[in-house]
């Protein structure tokens, strides 16, 4: 499935190690990392890495695992792109709050609520 036409979750601001973990957890076809190469005449910072994950039960489990593992960060921004029947694409942005004190279940509950999926699919 192409990430541009399917329901997808955009995870922005992840580091290289988190990207490696996502690569390990997800099949190659459901993870897309848009290139951010500079032109030869340009110099700049590395920028933030963004991963586009095609929504599936496996993908949601991987995202949940990533969120639970990275509870040190206080907020993760997920953008869900939804393709409607008429072909229009809508981007919905959710913030999932997590902290060292929040439980695994609380993080997963926020995620499933944000993505509007049945929590039972993650069991």
């Amino acid at each position, binding site marked *: 499935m192409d990430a*541009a036409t399917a329901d997808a979750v*955009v995870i*922005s*601001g*992840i*580091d*290289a*190690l*988190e*990207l*490696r*973990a996502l*690569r390990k957890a997800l099949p190659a076809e459901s993870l897309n990392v*848009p290139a*951010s*190469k*500079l*032109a*030869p*005449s*340009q*110099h*700049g*910072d*590395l*920028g*933030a*890495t*963004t991963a*586009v994950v095609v929504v599936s039960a496996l993908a949601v489990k991987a995202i949940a695992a990533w969120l639970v593992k990275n509870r*040190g*960060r*206080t907020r993760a921004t997920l*953008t869900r792109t939804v393709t409607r029947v008429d072909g229009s694409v809508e981007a919905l942005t959710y913030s999932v709050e997590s902290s060292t004190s929040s439980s695994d279940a609380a993080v997963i509950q926020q995620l499933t609520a944000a993505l509007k999926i049945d929590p039972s699919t993650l069991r």
Partner: protein
Amino acid sequence: MVRPMRSLTEYFTNHTVLSSAELAQALPRLIDPHEALPQSVLPTFLHEATHHWCFSSAVGTTIALLSVRARLRGLRAIATSSTRERENLERAAAEDLTRVEVTRELMRPLSEGIATFAEFDVLPTIRAPAVAAPLRWAIQVCNRSLLTEGTSQRDWVTLRNEATMRTAVALSTSRQDWSVRNRRVDILQQPLSCSNLPEGHASRGKEGYLAGYLAVKNLWCNARNLHEYLAFADYYMLFLYDYFYEDDELVRLLLDDSALAPESLAPITFYMRDRLLEPLDEDRVKDFHRRMMAVRSNAHSSNSLHFPSHPNDNRPSAQTEQLWERVIGDEMRVPCADYALFAKGLMYGRELMSLGSVPVEASVTKGEAVLTLPQGEALRLHVDADAPLGRFAATLNLCIGTRSGYHVVYALNNQFYVKHQAAIIAMQAMPALSDEQLRVVRRAALGRETPVVLDQLMRLEQQPLEGLRELSRVPGYLSQTTELLDGMYEPRALLSVPEQVLEEAIVKMRSDGVYGLLDEREDLIRAIAIHACPDKGKRRGFDRLREPRDLSLFARGARDLVRGIPGRVHARRRRTASVRDDPAGQGAHEARRERQVPGAHSQARRAAPVARHDRRGRDRIRRTAGGRDASVLRVGGDSRRTRRLLRMVRQGARGHHGRDPRTGARLRQLDEA
């Protein structure tokens, strides 16, 4: 499709794009000259400001001017009817472009290294004799309202110190944020290799971030043992700028007309390699410090908010004019002068660093321009004398005047024509500028718009330009230069790695950087990202902040800020103090210093040419160059050669490397004095 944004600076136009989402949100607010830059943007701002600063140096300006001259000569080549003249111009254009591309490529890891060092490690201090321009700009954009309050010389010094320390605290706090930590992790797992990585490799590679960053950190070890003041990261950053970017010898080599490529590239390449690999010259360091102390005493005697800075920082126009005459002067006396005039505008435009722009609706009446922001807020500015009256779409630009650091807001008519001053509707600067200074700023603001016109001109002539055969050689030279980078940067980057594990380290770090070196241990690399990157200079910054004598210099607000520093820093300070007081550790340092080998530098210098004649490397470069003679590019980058080079360099550097306990003692004495 999602496109990740990266902040960037273009070396030719020196245009900067800051892609931070926080900055985009804060932009309308920043139009008010008293509002401060958001704290979270500071590390990225410092990264790009450092690029901007370096590209407007003598070396950076020369490279940009050579690019302009290459285009001018190319346009003249396709316009001439004489075959001989066409060939000569074509060759000259290719020569200029080759020098530009080769030098830019040779300096790319260094440029990224200095910018990354500024982003993660540098803090402004009040003790460094002079301030690096990016830090000065950061101090100015973070403390706009504070810096307008002074009335006397005593006030100015106190305000300057307070603003400096406030910025240091803001910068330290912003570096604790997870987004900055993520970027540190990204840097540490970048490949050490600056060459092309195998197809499909996960890392971005080739851009030389890690090699440049580690090289800069290792040079620091060398530098701070030559002069105690170079222990300050901000002063060391200024030294690096002076050493590599205000280098008259490199400018001379770039403009030397006595040979053509590949022969003309050899001196540039070897000069850069020697500059990186050879230990720093003590006399050069002393000369730099003497110049900066002279600058500081002048700054103290002026009755204004004058930050002591590099002498060339305050005369960018004069420097550009001199170099323009030297490089482009002759081209102005022949056809294509229109292009040259636009190009001159571009050079002036390099003096402004953009923070961003906002679309506005302008309503201009006599004496006043009302600019309506997208959010509906209205901003009133004094209108320019020549501005057209009426309502039209405009763009409000926020810039920092490179070098002087003034804050400029100007509105530009979207339907403008570059040669018309009427393009600028209104302009406001802070602090208030003289008429002459405003004229320079106006010229720079218009100059920033000329790249669009230049691009259009070049696009019209694209097809005939692509037919110039000599220009097709440039990519070949460029790829040969990329092959050289590992041989130049790896030895300097890994200077502190023990010899018995060096080969293993090189193999592991080539593609995965420090992540590979740590056998892909995520916890270790995160620990390094959090705790090791804040170097000794930063801890010293905190230590000094806590000293009661320093605190008494500042107003109550600053003291409160200082008191808010997280408890983790206290623990780190205690650890540092315990290491400092360890007599066994000092003894080990003393013993190491006694093992210095006199005259080792000259031995290393004599031995260095051996590496140039390595047959395997030469053959490989020949293959890359398609069989053409590439005698200029003879330093390869495989691990065996790197080891040999490294051994030679280490022989030369022994005695300068490692921490000198006297430096710390001397700094403490200075503090007490």
